[in-house]
């Protein structure tokens, strides 16, 4: 089913387990119209959090609050974000990009993995991310003031330390930063149990596995194993796959290609799951 991006609403409350005060901080930032940067490793809940907050804020305001997500990449141009003229039959029509739609209709605009985009593209968001809250559309010669419900949110994974792919200070210092980490064992078990429908003791075992594999951070697994992968493993288990095998395919083989590292992780799996 196709839905215009500005009409994409979260209809059902997503499950999210708060790990700290991130809900309160985001709520305060939204009310103060301060843009937010979510930083943390892959699969730790950043996207789920923003979906949860979008739903929650919309519910509090009594209106459906749209969430517009853009996955940033190296080929993302300014036109992709802001909009472009297109030919339609014999006419040239202007098509708003996702940022423009979010600004116009008052959505939360979520730019995921902002560091993947080129820096000349990233700077386009600067006027939206400071006190001006406006978007210049040079092609049209217009300046668009942001809707009062609009908020800009970006995400960024600081674990990938390249001297090239980092966030410029002129960009990062326009945002309030909320840091995400993988949950503690008990919290992660709760999340995994909820997402997979597994009994809690099995979910605890998966959380223990996550904790142990993350100890190998300096062996090429900088990100460790994400909560997402643990959920995948749990989902396979619930579908009837034997736990050891499920963890092999969803964890060991997914996080690395190095055979010795796979071997070591497998022994951890076999130690945890009988």
């Amino acid at each position: 089913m196709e839905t215009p991006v500005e009409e994409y609403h979260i209809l059902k409350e997503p499950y999210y387990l708060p790990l700290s005060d991130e809900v309160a901080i985001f709520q305060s930032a939204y009310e103060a119209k301060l843009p937010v940067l979510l930083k943390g490793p892959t699969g730790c809940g950043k996207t789920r959090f923003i979906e949860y907050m979008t739903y929650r804020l919309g519910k509090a305001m009594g209106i459906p609050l749209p969430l517009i997500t853009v996955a940033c990449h190296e080929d993302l141009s300014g036109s992709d974000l802001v909009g472009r003229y297109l030919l339609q039959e014999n006419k040239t029509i202007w098509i708003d990009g996702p940022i423009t739609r979010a600004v116009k209709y008052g959505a939360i605009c979520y730019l995921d993995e902002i560091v993947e985009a080129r820096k000349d593209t990233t700077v386009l968001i600067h006027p939206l991310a400071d006190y001006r809250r406006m978007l210049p559309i040079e092609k049209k010669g217009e300046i668009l003031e942001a809707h009062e419900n609009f908020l800009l949110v970006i995400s960024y994974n600081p674990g990938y330390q390249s001297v090239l792919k980092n966030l410029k200070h002129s960009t990062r210092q326009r945002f309030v930063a909320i840091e995400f980490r993988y949950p503690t064992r008990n919290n992660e078990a709760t999340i995994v149990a909820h997402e997979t429908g597994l009994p809690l003791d099995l979910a605890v075992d998966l959380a223990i596995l996550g904790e142990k594999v993350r100890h190998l951070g300096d062996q090429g697994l900088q990100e460790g194993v994400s909560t997402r992968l643990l959920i995948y493993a749990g989902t396979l288990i619930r579908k009837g796959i034997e736990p050891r095998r499920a963890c092999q395919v969803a964890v060991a083989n997914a996080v690395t290609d190095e055979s010795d590292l796979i071997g070591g992780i497998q022994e951890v799996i076999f130690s945890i799951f009988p």
Partner: protein
Amino acid sequence: MGTNLKLSQERKTSGAVFLRDIIRPLKFYAQALSGEKMRLSPLKLLSQSSPGYRSRPPFADVEQIFLPEVCQEFSAPFMNFMAFKISTAHQIGFSEFGTYAFQLSSIRDLFSPEIFLTRLRSIYSQRMSVSPLEVFFRLFPNRELAHDLFQILEGVRIDHCLGRAYRGLKKEMVDYCQTAIEVKLKQPDFPRETTLFNFMIKSASFCQIVSFLPRSFLNHFTDFLSLVSPLLEKQATVEDTARTTITLYERISSKPVFPLKTVPDGSDFGLKVTFTEIPFNEKGTNPAWPGNPAEKESDRLATPPLHSFQLPLELIQRKLTNQDFQILLNNSETGSPLSTTTLGDRLNEMEIGWQTSSKGLPMIPPHQVAGGFKYRIGPSSRKSGTRLLGTTKASPGSHSSPLDIEDENDEKVYYYDEWNYRAGDYLPDWCLVKEKSIKPGSFDFIDKTLESYAGLVAEVRRQFQWLRPEYLKKIYCYEKGDEIDLNAAIEAAIDCRIGHPPSEKIYVEKLRKERNFSTLFLLDISASTAERADGTSSPPPIPPLASNDRVFIPRFLEMEEVTPTILLDTTSKRVIDVEKEALVVMAEALREIGDDYAIWGFSSNGRLDVDLYIIKDFDEDYNEEVKRRIEGIKPQHSTRMGPALRHALSKIAARGAKTKTIILISDGYPQDRDYGEDRQDREYGLYDTKVALQEVKANGIHPFCLTVDLAGNDYLRKICSESEYLVIEEATDLPRVLPKIYHRLTT
């Protein structure tokens, strides 16, 4: 089978599993389980370093696990592998479940204060390097008995902790133990006494098989169980084990029927096994022994099998410091206040001006504390001034100021400040840095390295080829090209329609996107790099050739001044050799992408003698001359990192690249004979290095510290952020890791 073992066909046939084949996955397993970087080392290294090992084992770090080189106790490779795995988990269990957290103060109440203090003073006065557990054993008249009892009891506690924490491991241990004991019982030469005593001890474990135990043993068995069962509970701690040891010691030592003696076991997996002389029946035989039919069914008893993977615990526990002894002896932490005179003397030594207040107390004026701040972490600018050896030609804003006068060897010299953390200020022009050349080597090191690492070099070359500019992405919106950029073309057509001048950049071109990097590899070539890369303190003896051995002895071995490092096995390599190999592999990788780079070595012998060896400068090609300089790198003196970094900064800052990096490769913490007022003060060197790194970053250069010092985490986290350093556990991994780090930093 639980792992993908890469075994030779011959080994598969014999069932033997060699540590060398599985050491890496086991190492990862150990690190994952424990959360600590664990080194797995062959037992032979332990026995080499201490000839009297069996009678008096040496101490080692908590980060090491010693395992036999081979396990061939079973015909199935899987079982031999499980022996290694369970032994590893068992050793980690001591760390994970608090064995090394043992505190002497927790059991002090069980000994009379006089005995406790007397024994403690005796140990302290001998200045022995001991751990708390070793001290605990020395409190007993028969320390070996106490040690054996403690080790067995603590092993039981650990096994149960492991079983509770890891359900899969519990099942593996049960299955393994069951199979192992069945195998052991079938061995005709297996010492029965050992088996029976271990049956008794291990009855508390969860391994349950039916076996035989003499009825006369049962009373002691039941008594023992009542002592041990509290250790099986979740809340049991190492202190409980210590207390149980004391209780059991008292009971056993008072029963002459149970004389205990300690003898070395033949198997490497049971290094020190204690057994008891079991009382047999009148005929001297045990009617209920396997092989003899049980007289009655009631003589049979469920008993546990052997689990003999244990090492002397005092090997892997941290040692007590002098301060720890003092605290124990004094039983308090109160100190004595300094007199005003003493405080004044201390301040004078530190050259901090002070006055006496109206109340007779030393006062330090604020400006003395501030130190007339010359604190600068911003872009540095050298000031000109008079130097010891002449005047400078420093220009404002420059980062270095070569002297007019060169020293007698025509080497350029530079002065750099040094950060004194005690004073909170720089010491101006404190260090003298000299650029030196390296005497070329006379040994075909490069070719041998490329041969040894042929596979790695090929892989690295392939990976770096993908970084080559011609493989990089297409450039859109270009003025010319082989393809049309559709988006740009549409926009141009639209611009036409609406009356705007269209853009000409409507093509896609595959362009060489220039990599714009400069990297300076700064190599620590201090004396410590002469140490073995595997951590042993002395080189293993070269075995004498047997008469029928056919060994190729290269010509260069006949040359006195050359140390053959390549053709010996890995364990004989020095850290410097591994560093040189890493540079060779890195240079091959960089040859593929043409990045701008330099290689320098540094060493120091005091603040006025800091040497920077230009192995390859930025504008030099990686030619034969450079290769011979790499060959010629030799360990020098000490490691004064601050001035080396500052000089590196001054050089790389002048490069025109957009992105600049300094990769510091070292094997230890910064130290020099006068690096701080007190040579034992490690903090001084660390703080100076920290500030130097901050200066590097403030100038827009990215530093990265790579160390093969296993203790690197302890101090590197103090001087740079977590993403700016890496500790390499095995020094021999450096050639593999260095290109990966570079790849990661520059993509």
